[in-house]
């Protein structure tokens, strides 16, 4: 995995590194990346919505996505971590050090399983408490309303919190949004407060609850009734969460080991 000059303006693979040393170097690079071990994602599909969003973002930040364009990551020229070119698209980019997309793991939470398309659980277990949330968006994909009615829907997102009894769960309003029935595309719900509290207190993370009301009738509807793609829908249109973090200065300092 390491190539150096051979003195004749050619790159040759460094093959004489003993296996044990090579392993140690790999561990050094992992530690440099702030990882304790090589991540082992379970069957990660790059075609699902969260990775696709991140790959698109990466490609936009690095031109066409060619590996050579990484050269442009000049710290002096770009004092902020991410390029200004996407500032209009995502204002939080400029103040972020890390961007993370979270997959909905609602199936792992026993009390949320039965409401899969209107409940969400994003695992913040890997997030360091020293990271500060600068913004978080729940992204829901809405297809056109197949019922053909012209109305407006009120989409509300609640955080699920522990009640007095262990069995009790309470819903605390987080954000809400009005959307027209003929709208088609991604709906962005600001869930910064929830992400912030999950980062500081991971144990408080009990998920999010989605409530949809037809503004003309007052009737509560299921997400799929208004075209919001659920877990049985297209993988590239599944709901996910994008979170923007700013790292504390301490995390940039390499610790002596």
């Amino acid at each position: 995995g390491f190539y150096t000059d051979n003195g004749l303006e050619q790159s040759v693979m460094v093959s004489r590194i003993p296996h044990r040393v090579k392993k140690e170097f790999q561990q050094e690079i992992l530690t440099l990346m702030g990882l304790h071990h090589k991540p082992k994602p379970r069957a990660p599909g790059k075609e699902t919505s969260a990775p696709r969003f991140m790959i698109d973002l990466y490609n936009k930040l690095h031109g066409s996505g060619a590996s050579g364009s990484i050269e442009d990551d000049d710290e002096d020229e770009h004092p902020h971590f991410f390029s200004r070119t996407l500032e209009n698209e995502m204002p939080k980019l400029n103040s972020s050090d890390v961007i993370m997309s979270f997959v909905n793991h609602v199936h792992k939470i026993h009390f949320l399983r039965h409401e899969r398309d209107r409940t969400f659980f994003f695992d913040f277990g890997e997030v360091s408490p020293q990271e500060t949330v600068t913004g978080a968006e729940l992204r829901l994909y809405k297809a056109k309303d197949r019922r053909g009615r012209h109305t407006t829907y009120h989409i509300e997102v609640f955080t699920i919190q522990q009640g007095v009894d262990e069995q009790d769960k309470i819903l605390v309003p987080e954000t809400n949004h009005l959307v027209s029935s003929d709208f088609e595309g991604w709906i962005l719900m600001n869930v910064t407060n929830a992400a912030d509290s999950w980062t500081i207190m991971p144990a408080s993370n009990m998920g999010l609850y989605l409530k949809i009301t037809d503004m003309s009738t007052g009737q509560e509807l299921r997400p799929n009734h208004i075209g919001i793609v659920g877990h049985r829908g297209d993988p590239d249109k599944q709901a996910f969460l994008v979170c923007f973090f700013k790292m504390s200065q301490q995390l940039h300092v390499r610790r002596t080991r």
Partner: protein
Amino acid sequence: SARRQMDTRTAVSHRDDSHWTWRRTRRYVRPVCRRKTMYVDFEDLGWQSWIIAPEGYSAFYCDGDCIFPLGLNMNATNHAIVQLLLHTVKSQTMPKPCCSPTKLSAISVLYFDDNSNVILKKYRSMKVKACGCH
């Protein structure tokens, strides 16, 4: 100065600064301090299962001697002149100026974590942009 003149006489060919200088004495002389290529290939490391992009990156490294005249060397600091002067006077005890990075840049890495979440993180000071004598 006398030493430099002697060196000029003995030098047969300098293909360029990037190569080892071949002298009549048939001794290899280390080139002056400069940036050289060091490519880290994530795919070769077997990390493609979790690193989405890039496939690897040019980390570069600094190699070569910091010798008089320092003008030949890239980005020599003022202190490097003092250090080299001291080395000339007391070569046994005083080290030469060090050929090391003077400018570093970041790389951004896109990768999966254990929960299949995707992280885009920019790592500062990961690649050498320029080398110099310190």
